């Protein structure tokens, strides 16, 4: 009788070219996604005067530095240079680029699955920490640094120590108005930002199975915020239906053969995990972050925590520091926190279902604060326009932007001004993440819409009455 295996093991084994005496494995890479920020990796290839080993497995996308709030016009030549450098590097090495004017352009972690490049059973890397997103289709997807980017460009391989296996099981039924973002933030709140360090995480259980493919992408996107090396969901009929017909996906008999392989990927019933965590979906509320780490997550009906109740003096000082940065008082009700603007976008929550969820709340209502909506890809943008979602956003008073990483990281110039507070569908509430001095509260697209309408953090649930 063969040993029961996890999803992770079943993908790892056929990608292991060798295991060295030092315990590290050399893994084959099926897809390498690069973006403007990968220039340091290309520089190292140049420094060695070598060529990209497998341009056919390397895909470039312009996302981090592209303009998103005022058409496609660069206000700063140094930003334009980041995009033109990517064009030059991909031209030189024969790598396909989905550039600024390409109809397939978008955020790398939205475009990979959308174009059918991301498939179950693959090993995928990208010089971006949110690469785990792709694990939602049942792949091992790992974020890497610039040195590793150059290593993959030159060899189509990378070295990894096999991580421990962790399973996060979410069973039960989610309440109305509660989605993948609430699950993901609740997991991080429970285990902490280093709770999954050194682990490859598989999300399982009825509530995960019940998520749409896009919801699973949101969930796995946030795996890194719990310290996980990767996050993944076993592929199933939801996954296969999502992939079928996408541009780069296998077609016809090839697709059927691939599905036969993919159907064997889910963890065996008796497979063992090094660590197990479980959550009850019915206990998950709409959540928001109050501090400067994604683990600073609380249900919307809670209050800002009080450092005076924390025993460890360093921790109390740190909490006070977070409250000072965020401009909040201990025990203040979360729903009393006023916001200055909102942002809907990023690799976490910018897919069509995210935009629909926000639009369902905003339809026929006015936002009290300004805000930017940036679709995750140009494909999503066009689909949203066909569905009339852009009108809902603009009639509510929000700006309908172009696709890119945008105000999540702000390096394209779309910043939250110093001291301003932003309700955001993004992934990081770190100090200065959306701009120097910017204050970020993370939440779901529906909750951001609720904050836009009320002008403060708010529970979206009462606002959904009579709406689908």
């Amino acid at each position: 009788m063969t040993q029961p295996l996890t999803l992770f093991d079943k993908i790892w084994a056929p990608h292991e070219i060798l295991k060295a005496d030092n315990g590290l494995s050399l893994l084959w890479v099926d897809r390498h996604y690069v973006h403007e920020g990968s220039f340091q990796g290309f520089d190292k290839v140049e420094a060695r005067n070598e060529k990209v080993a497998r341009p056919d497995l390397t895909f470039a996308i312009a996302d981090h530095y592209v303009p998103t709030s005022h058409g496609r016009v660069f206000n700063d030549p140094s930003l334009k240079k980041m995009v033109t450098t990517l064009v030059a590097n991909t031209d030189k090495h024969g790598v396909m680029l989905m550039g600024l004017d390409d109809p397939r352009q978008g955020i790398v972690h939205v475009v990979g699955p959308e174009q059918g490049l991301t498939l179950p059973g693959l090993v995928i890397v990208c010089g971006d920490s949110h690469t785990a997103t792709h694990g939602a289709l049942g792949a091992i997807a790992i974020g890497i640094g610039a040195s590793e980017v150059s290593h993959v460009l030159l060899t189509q391989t990378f070295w990894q120590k096999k991580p421990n296996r962790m399973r996060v099981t979410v069973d039960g039924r989610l309440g109305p108005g509660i989605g993948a973002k609430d699950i993901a933030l609740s997991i991080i709140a429970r285990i902490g930002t280093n709770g999954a360090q050194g682990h490859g995480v598989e999300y399982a259980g009825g509530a995960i199975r019940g998520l749409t493919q896009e919801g699973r992408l949101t969930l796995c996107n946030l795996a890194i915020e719990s310290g996980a090396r990767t996050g993944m969901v076993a592929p199933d009929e939801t996954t296969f239906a999502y992939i079928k017909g996408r541009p780069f996906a296998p077609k016809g008999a090839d697709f059927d053969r691939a599905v036969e392989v993919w159907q064997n990927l889910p963890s065996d019933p008796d497979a063992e995990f090094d660590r197990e965590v479980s959550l009850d979906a019915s206990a998950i509320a709409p959540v928001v972050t109050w501090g400067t780490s994604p683990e600073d997550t609380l249900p919307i009906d809670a209050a800002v925590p009080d450092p005076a109740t924390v025993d460890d003096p360093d921790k109390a000082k740190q909490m006070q520091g977070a409250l000072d940065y965020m401009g909040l008082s201990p025990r203040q009700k979360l729903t009393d926190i006023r916001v200055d603007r909102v942002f809907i976008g990023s690799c976490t929550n910018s897919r069509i279902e995210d935009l629909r969820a926000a639009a369902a709340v905003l339809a026929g209502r006015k936002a009290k604060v300004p805000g930017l909506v940036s679709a995750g890809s140009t494909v999503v943008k066009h689909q949203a326009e066909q569905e009339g979602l852009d009108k809902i956003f603009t009639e509510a008073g929000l700006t309908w932007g172009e696709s890119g990483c945008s105000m999540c990281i702000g390096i394209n110039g779309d910043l939250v001004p110093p001291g301003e507070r932003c309700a955001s569908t993004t992934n990081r509430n770190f100090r200065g993440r959306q701009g120097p001095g910017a204050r970020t509260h993370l939440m779901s697209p529906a909750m951001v819409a609720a904050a836009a309408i009320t002008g403060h953090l708010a529970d979206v649930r009462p606002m959904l009455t009579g709406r689908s």
Partner: protein
Amino acid sequence: MEKFTQLAGTAVALRRDNVDTDQVIPARFLKISRAEGLGDALFRDLRFDQNGKPRPDFPMNDPARKGASILIGRRNFGVGSSREAAVYALVDHGFRCVVATSFGDIFAGNSVNNGLVAAIVSEEDIEKLLSAVEQTGRAEVDLEAQTIKSGNYVVPFTIDPARKTRLINGWDELDLTAQHKDKIAAFAVKDRAARPWAVPRV
């Protein structure tokens, strides 16, 4: 890559958990190429206020800590963004060793690729070490013995053995991989036949 065996130098204590790589180097400095150097951008918004004035309460701004090569953090250092520029900024500023109770996975990997030692110590020892370094301003790191000394305290640290070997020998990962060139080529051929569906349909 520069070899690392032992290091004695100025040390600075940073009593903070979850120092993410956005704090280590804010995103607006990610356009800078390595050739230009990223040391000035290190901890930029923690070190300086919005007017560019040094924040007096930030430990690195103590004139006695100028030229520090050893940084003592706390829980979960280097989490978040995969930006290797965080390691470049530390190294370009003169740091060769960062100590914490845990590190972001990608940060730890980036460190070894740039000769920076990411040393893990226990929660109990980190508190001792932080206090000792605050008093003495100095520390000694012995990678072979896996110890850090400051004042009267000597604390052990852990590091992945494969990473330790690379740091001690100054080995570049690409040179190690080059030894396996034939195996990689053979794998690619075999894998292509075994998993035709895995090739993107262009």
